[in-house]
């Protein structure tokens, strides 16, 4: 797992690249987090149970003064959040990729969904045929966002 520190218009963001597995070092990520910390997870591409344990260690050890905002979480990460109690700890998911399926051409796609609009009825069009796309997951369990933001 590689960590990339980048700065955007909202401040510093940590981008994680690679596998969330036994080689993930929670201390290395924790060292980058302070105040309202943002982590971009889009490029995390494989999560196994050893990685889940490491992630839980990070959540357990998160200092109270850190507010962790998770951005662009992959669908596989959201699945873990719905499976594993405490997976999000005190972290808040700001946005995630969700599986959508075109009702016309049956094409599947991962769509970036913002927390604020996730549960609102939103028309999404298929890039291939223009048909209507629908969430291809159980909304009640998939959109598991953690603590309410604004803290």
């Amino acid at each position, binding site marked *: 797992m590689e960590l990339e520190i980048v700065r955007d218009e909202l401040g510093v963001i940590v981008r994680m690249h690679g596998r969330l*597995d*036994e080689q993930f070092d929670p201390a290395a990520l924790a060292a980058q987090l302070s105040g309202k910390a943002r982590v971009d997870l889009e490029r995390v591409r*494989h999560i196994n149970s050893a990685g889940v344990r490491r992630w839980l260690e990070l959540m357990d050890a998160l200092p109270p003064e850190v507010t962790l905002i998770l951005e662009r979480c992959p669908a*596989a990460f959201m699945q873990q959040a719905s499976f594993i109690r405490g997976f999000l700890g005190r972290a808040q998911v700001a946005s995630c990729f969700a599986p959508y399926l075109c009702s016309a051409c049956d094409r*599947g796609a991962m769509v970036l969904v913002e927390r604020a609009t996730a549960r609102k009825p939103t028309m999404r069009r298929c890039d291939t045929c223009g048909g209507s796309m629908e969430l291809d*997951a159980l909304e009640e369990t998939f959109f598991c966002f953690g603590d309410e933001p604004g803290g």
Partner: protein
Amino acid sequence: MPSRRVLMVASEPERLTALIHLLGASGIEAAHVQTAAAARSWLRIHRADLGIIDLADARERDARAELIREQKERTSGLDVVALVGELDDSLRRLIRERGLANFVGHRPGEAADPLELAVTVRKLVDDDIFGLDKYLAAGAETQGFVVRSLRERDQACDEVRAFCSRFGNHELVSDGLATAADEMVSNVLGHHDDQREASLSVGCDGRRIAIATRDPHGDLDGETVLRCITACFDASTAPREGGLGLFAIFRLVQQFVINLEPGRATEVIGVVDVTRSFQAFSRKAKSFNLFRRRGSD
């Protein structure tokens, strides 16, 4: 080969018609009764090699669960496959307290998959338990890997993901199967003093993708597996330490199969139907099978 017979306890026999034909083609007779009381009467007179007992019918559920408890208490009692709609406390108790090792999930109002059930019955009746091929139609495309290290595991999982992507358009299912493969291989490689290797296979027949690992050690403990499986019923009880890998596999596949010959071989198999949407995959009832070679305990 002497005639083999299965007793089915279910309220709607028409839902078992396809299974009865499939078993008949394998030389396995099927008898049917509708209630637990009728099953007891039948068993006083007849002999059966296996019972298929439907627990999804709410009216007969408690009586049939009691029938399973009775059979499991007897040394000569029936081996049982339960048909279940939900993973609930009643099923958890049958597994933990009575050692029920096989259940096949089906949605309320739908029949259990006859092919899945037929494979389960044949494996139990014939004691021929190993092989990924049993879960795929003839002519299925398969790929195999030998994995000896974490680096090889990661490469093999990427290959599994690429293989699965060719047969379905659900990225999450492909990701899930690659992760299940990772957990299966890690379970073979990890926490042992000796250098181990796992045989990883993946196959698809156009409808189902099945993945499997096999090793020649046979040191996975059946009782531990059953304890972990019941912990998987509810996400709030997900194990945070031991058993998290089994929990992950159970969550990521529709049918989770463990074949054990203690001291000789362990095979772990996961099966997913790739013809349906991810939402349908998420809603489908789970199946679990633990097969132990007879005389190997």
